[in-house]
């Protein structure tokens, strides 16, 4: 148990510190870094899904005036490490997926770089490829672990026996689509290799973690950490795709090293991002639920099939939330992968929980329907006293309160009957639960210095819109017991102490803990009247840690859906979420994060779908005109609320993390509402109008 910080700055809804720069457009993102006389880099992508390069003719490209260099596997430098085959760019003639980079052109302007890339002639020996995920794929295998290090399968009791004898069962298969993170800022790197400089390599990269980014570059190029600096003050969104570097970071570095002393800029196109910066695997989820007549679960099981790439494994932990969400004596989760000739999947907002709260939460709705029990009540009846997986007590679990408060705010008790019609619209309501684990990373250090009458805290953290620039000073101020205005926090640079990746909703928990350790150390060492230049560091591993409790944020989302009786067009006029996510550091930025997650959840429910063309081995709709994300007009009355939750076990701030929980459960709530409106149960995302057409009058 931890004594929480006395909240003074914490809890205040201050305006973003970086807000003015952002509304003016003067916040500088990676590709915008002002550098002297930059060269521009444009990648050339493979046009076959599997095979070998048999010839690569760069002469036409090199003949263009203004083309500085053309790099291919034939002339690119040999990398120190090629263990990670996503990072091992231009090292061989092998093509492992369509869209893989086979050359880069460096030129005086972006137009010339692009022209040069078009002029590179590549011939291939194409081989038959396999890029189609199927539930009965013959090569499905069991990965050793699932992301990041969970057990692949778990089992307790006898699910089959419970299914055979239970009063009511649900046994259905659900699927989620392939999704691309698509942050608005396209992935980009500005790189400078200056061998004569003290730090020869500087990368201005759009990344969720400058230190992890640097570590990967050092490994691949055989450089020492002191030789590399990564800078990233602002990130134009990431949602996981910038949590780990991708091929372009190494290509930019390679290009910079080919033109020593000259900065290079590599910005991927939106189209290129569909094969080069990760995505969420499609998932197929076979669900089994068994319940007694009162609705108590007797069995819950999920068997997940999903894909990874042949060259690098990523195993999305889709079944993980089923392990802890509801009480049941018999339980099973499994994960099987097909390794395909496809781009490398990776993190996308709430990996595991996001797809993994779709099938189960729709299945719960189906169970409620079969039992004739209200779906809110069904969830309440299956509330576990302890974590069903570990047997640990909860640090705090307020799912029931979220459901009750959400129902109250939404007017759930007075919701219209199934199939209710208002004019040309069928109206339906739906609910689903949300969950996300509360995490803290093992590594992060903050340094606090007293400077010119202010406290300056430095940590290599990242703000990808999450509000770190604003909330870290709030935490530091309370930890130091000073006014927020007396604290400046600097982030986004490997010159500052090491910080963990901004991912897993763990940033504030981790960096805030390190800041607090440093602040306490500072006061211990220098008291309340420090001298100019007094400085200490604090590590997150010195913060108190609790292993005795299972820590999660919970939530409930309520949706009103309208389906046009003529056309099947779907609208969501209301989406309310209530969350129990510990103490909220800044209500203004927190609300934005929760709404943002819900909006992306709505987008997943209704729109997003990377349509895989199995013939070509690529995403057919690879741009923002055809890969639909929710637009402003799709969003109606959307509200995020939270409980005043006091959790003394998670960390000294009492915060649980809010970046991801908002996207979990949303799509299920939408599907459940569509069912109530139309009578159609859609088990495959997204819910598009063609899928409801046959149910319309």
């Amino acid at each position: 148990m931890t004594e929480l910080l006395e909240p003074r700055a914490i809890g205040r809804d201050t305006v973003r510190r970086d807000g003015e720069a952002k509304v003016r457009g003067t916040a500088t993102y990676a590709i915008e870094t002002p550098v002297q006389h930059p060269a521009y880099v444009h990648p050339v992508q493979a046009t076959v899904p599997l095979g070998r390069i048999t010839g690569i003719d760069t002469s036409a490209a090199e003949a263009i005036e203004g083309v500085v260099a053309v790099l291919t596997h034939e002339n690119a430098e040999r990398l120190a490490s090629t263990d990670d085959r996503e990072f091992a760019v231009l090292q061989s003639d092998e093509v492992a997926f369509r869209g893989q980079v086979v050359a880069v052109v460096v030129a005086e302007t972006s137009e010339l770089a692009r022209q040069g890339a078009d002029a590179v002639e590549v011939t291939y020996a194409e081989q038959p490829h396999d890029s189609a995920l199927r539930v009965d794929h013959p090569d499905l295998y069991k990965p050793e672990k699932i992301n990041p290090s969970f057990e692949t399968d778990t089992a307790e009791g006898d699910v089959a026996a419970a299914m055979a004898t239970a009063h009511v069962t649900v046994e259905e298969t659900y699927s989620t689509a392939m999704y691309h993170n698509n942050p608005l800022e396209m992935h980009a790197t500005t790189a400078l290799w200056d061998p004569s400089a003290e730090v020869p390599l500087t990368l201005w990269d759009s990344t969720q973690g400058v230190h992890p980014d640097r570590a990967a570059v050092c490994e691949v190029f055989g450089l020492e950490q002191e030789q590399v600096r990564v800078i990233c003050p602002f990130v134009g969104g990431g949602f996981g795709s910038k949590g780990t570097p991708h091929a372009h970071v190494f290509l930019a570095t390679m290009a910079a090293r080919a033109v020593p002393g000259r900065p290079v800029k590599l910005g991927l196109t939106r189209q290129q991002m569909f094969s080069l910066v990760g995505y969420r695997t499609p998932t197929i989820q076979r669900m089994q639920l068994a319940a007694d007549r009162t609705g108590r679960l007797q069995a819950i099981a999920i068997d997940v099939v999903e894909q990874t790439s042949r060259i690098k494994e990523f195993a999305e932990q889709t079944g993980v939330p089923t392990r802890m969400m509801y009480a049941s004596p018999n339980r099973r989760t499994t994960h099987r992968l097909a390794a395909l000739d496809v781009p490398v999947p990776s993190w996308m907002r709430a990996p595991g929980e996001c797809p993994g709260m779709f099938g189960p939460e729709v299945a719960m709705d189906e169970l409620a329907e079969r039992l004739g029990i209200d779906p809110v009540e069904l969830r309440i009846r299956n509330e576990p006293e302890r974590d069903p997986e570990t047997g640990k007590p909860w640090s705090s679990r307020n799912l029931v309160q979220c459901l009750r408060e959400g129902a109250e705010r939404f007017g759930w008790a007075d919701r219209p009957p199934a199939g209710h019609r208002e004019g040309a619209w069928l109206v339906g309501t739906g609910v689903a639960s949300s969950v996300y684990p509360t995490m803290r990373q093992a590594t992060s250090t903050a340094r606090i210095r007293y400077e010119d009458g202010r406290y300056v805290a430095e940590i290599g953290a990242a703000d990808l819109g999450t509000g770190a620039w604003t909330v870290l000073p709030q935490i530091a101020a309370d930890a130091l017991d000073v006014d927020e205005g007396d604290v400046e926090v600097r982030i986004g640079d490997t010159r500052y102490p090491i910080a963990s990746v901004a991912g897993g909703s763990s940033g504030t928990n981790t960096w805030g803990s390190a800041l607090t350790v440093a602040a306490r150390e500072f006061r211990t060492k220098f008291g309340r009247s420090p001298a100019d230049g007094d400085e200490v560091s604090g590590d997150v591993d010195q913060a108190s840690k609790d292993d005795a409790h299972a820590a999660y944020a919970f939530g409930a989302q309520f949706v009103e859906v309208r389906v046009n009786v003529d056309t099947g067009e779907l609208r969501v006029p209301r989406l309310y979420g209530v969350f129990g996510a510990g103490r909220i550091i800044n209500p203004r930025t927190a609300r934005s994060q929760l709404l943002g997650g819900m909006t992306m959840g709505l987008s997943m429910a209704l729109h997003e779908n990377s349509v895989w063309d199995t013939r070509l081995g690529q995403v057919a709709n690879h741009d923002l005109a055809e890969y639909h994300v929710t637009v402003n007009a799709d969003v109606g009355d959307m509200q995020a609320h939270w409980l005043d939750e006091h959790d003394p076990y998670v960390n000294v701030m009492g915060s649980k993390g809010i970046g991801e929980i908002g996207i979990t459960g949303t799509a299920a709530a939408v599907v459940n509402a569509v069912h109530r409106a139309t009578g159609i149960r859609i088990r495959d995302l997204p819910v598009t109008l063609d899928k409801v057409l046959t149910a319309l009058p």
Partner: protein
Amino acid sequence: MKPFAFARPADAAEAVATVATEPRAVFLAGGTNLVDHLKLGVARPDLVVDVRRLTSREITDTADGGLRIGAAVTNSELAADRRVRERYPVLAQALLAGATGQLRNLATTGGNPLQRTRCVYFQDVSTPCNKREPGSGCSAVGGYTRYHAILGTSAALPDPTAPETCIATHPSDMAVALAVLDAQVQVLGPAGARTIPFAELHRLPGDDPSRDTVLEHGELITAIDLPPLPAGARSAYRKVRDRASYAFALVSVAAVVADGEVRLALGGVAHKPWRASRAEEALRGGPVADDAVRHAMDVELTTAQPQPGVDGGNGFKIPLVTRTVVATVRDLTQETQA
């Protein structure tokens, strides 16, 4: 993106002469489609001729009670024009259902109907496409066909390797409204001026899917004329799409309902704005109750050919377009009665 020369002639006649003498020259107006295609490598001109300021930006009343719209009038200006809003709501609605405010401020009256298909394979130069590269084949057949044609395709069951195969749709909303309004297109070409009925501007793929329209190289749209609608006519545009805004049509309907007459044009279903003349004929002089409209659409769609595809195909468009037409005509009829 290959290099090109840029020219801004003094007037439309010089622009036409310039393009006519250079086989790889193109006109540039608002640029919203051409610049996109320059970057993708879909358009590879040697010369770009800027005509943005060379045609009229005025909307004027014509002697017959209609309107003449200069080719340089932007989509925003046209949709905001009082006369258009009052007399041709189908056109204002179609324009406002298309693209976004910041695109409509650039896009022009002459350019919008000439925008090219949004077929994902047409836009991806790494895949075969008969429209982009004649004779290379059609990648769309059996691929991602959600936005593709069900009417007027080159064959009942298209052969993806055949040079004539194309199942692309025309993406313009404005063009569907112009088709239902019996608009006339004023064209200036190397051989002089001519007038093309809007319904004849766009073509089916036939044996040459690379050609979207009947315009010859060097012909420039200078204005579009709208004839007056019959007294008491009502008109509307209804667009059905995958998100609430900023998306191309899955299907769309432009409808005019007048005494004893229903006019219908369909978007998102064919290589060109599809005037549903069979349905119009079936409805002529008769009642326009739901059943009659449904029956008329059955007649219209007898030749419809749904396309299978990697995402479930586009067979849903057949019931969808019928439902959309029925609802649109019903709304217009009820409006008339009210």
